[in-house]
């Protein structure tokens, strides 16, 4: 499968990734080459094969519903790009 510049721009939007216009053709070429590699999977007959999500087919453990984490808000906010009064600041969402 081959991807064109418009499709790459759409995928980049889905991924919330800004790509410079001049880089789009190169990504389109690389992604098409990767999808061509991936298409080699189609040579395999996988009818009736159960998909493997976990290497050891283990199920996820459940933990008891108890508080295990102490409040470390100040510690974690020390590395945030922008905070005020204990809140993370982002551009205004509602005008």
């Amino acid at each position, binding site marked *: 499968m081959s991807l064109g510049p418009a499709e790459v721009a759409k*995928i980049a939007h889905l*991924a919330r990734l800004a790509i410079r216009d001049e880089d789009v053709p190169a*990504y389109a070429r690389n992604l098409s080459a990767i999808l061509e590699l*991936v298409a080699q*999977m189609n040579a395999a007959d996988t009818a009736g094969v159960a998909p493997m999500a976990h290497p050891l087919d283990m199920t996820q453990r459940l933990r008891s519903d108890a508080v295990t984490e102490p409040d470390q808000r100040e510690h974690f906010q020390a590395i945030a790009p922008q905070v005020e009064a204990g809140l*993370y600041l982002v551009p205004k969402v509602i005008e």
Partner: protein
Amino acid sequence: MHEKTIAQLSAGLAAGEFSSEELTRAFLERVERFNPQLNAFITVTAEAALARARAADQRRHRDEAGPLTGVPIVHKDIFCTEGVRTSCGSRMLDRFVAPYDATVVEKLNTAGAVMLGKTNMDEFAMGSSNETSLYGPVHNPWDLAMVPGGSSGGSAAAVAARLTPGATGTDTGGSIRQPAALCGITGLKPTYGRVSRWGMIAYASSLDQGGPMARSAEDCALLLGAMAGFDPRDSTSADRPVPDYTALLDRPLDGLKIGLPKEYFGEGLDGAVAQVVEEAIAEYRKLGAETVEISLPNSRLAIPAYYVIAPAECSSNLARFDGVRYGHRCENPKDLLDLYTRSRGEGFGPEVTRRILVGTFALSAGYYDAYYLKAQQIRRLISDDFQRAFQQVDVIAGPTSPTVAFKLGEKVDDPITMYLSDIYTIAVNLAGLPGLSLPVGFAAGLPVGLQLIGDYFAEDRLLHTAHRYQQATDWHLRAPAAFA
């Protein structure tokens, strides 16, 4: 002191031949002298290392020392280290100071190991040459014009150049074994779930696994013993006891059955590498092992399936980097969407971007069955191949990498060619099996690695198999001339 293995350093510390502070100073001096040529470190934590070394010496005086107490190590910069920058080789985390220690870091701290610093790596562990790092490529100590392999290239180069006796690495598709092979050291990717992933920055969660990198199998056994174990904070951690990996190293190999997959010795394998690997296998026969040809018929499907599963999981894992709570944020975002897209666009390099885009595409509406589901079915076929083989043999052996180290810049603009470097390692991650690479000789003056693959939780068998070879040969003791 730098030429000694961890086992020898541990014995020297126990016998009082030198203190941990002396040892740590000696390695820090080597880092200062040689790292500018290698670029193996992103951060050197000299002061903290000396403080930890003095604490280790006091612990020894109190008779509370273990085998790793006072032994210097380095961590790949993917493991969170409290109070120390944890960059993952990315602009996204260039100024990220981790607020907590990864379980692996915590465990090695508890064992008394002394962290010298954090090592360079491909950005977010995505790469096979260490060239995608924000901090520039690492140089191979055997030839500075060559790549060290990746993504744990800084750890591999630092061990090979004797800047540290041991290191941690992570392996999602070969990132411990391939750089170990290209730098002439020993590296082990444990069974999925053996080593906790907590605090290890996620790339592809169903494949990622941390492990040790050192000069010898014995040293890897010592490190793994401290790193492995159940961790309730990692939901896929294996809840089973950790054996003493050093206890059974010296048994003879008599009767060991080694399987040689015919698919690993065919087209694509460099002739000189093949010859060195054949010689290593002949050595194993001399040591009492029996070899049989086996087949892993779905091997050729491993790379295609991996380049669906790993990017899909990466696109999901890396969605957390949004410029809000931590990590890179763009200047003057005009709205929230602009903040997300520009922070991510500026924060991620080209290879990470490629994989996020491939993963986003593969998981987008209408494509799930054709890509992710198909890849997960192939994963089952690959895993079944290995399980059939292990009914017949104890260990599988073959080349770790199809070539020796290649030139810096040679493959960086051609992702597909780069991906083929991991042709023999990727299937092991898809199946979740343990794999080890050990140095077995040289081709064109550069190290060649032999990969040993074991059944689930057979790390002890792999370490034993590698150790016996290292008792009979001296490839693992060879040092690059410029760093001897």
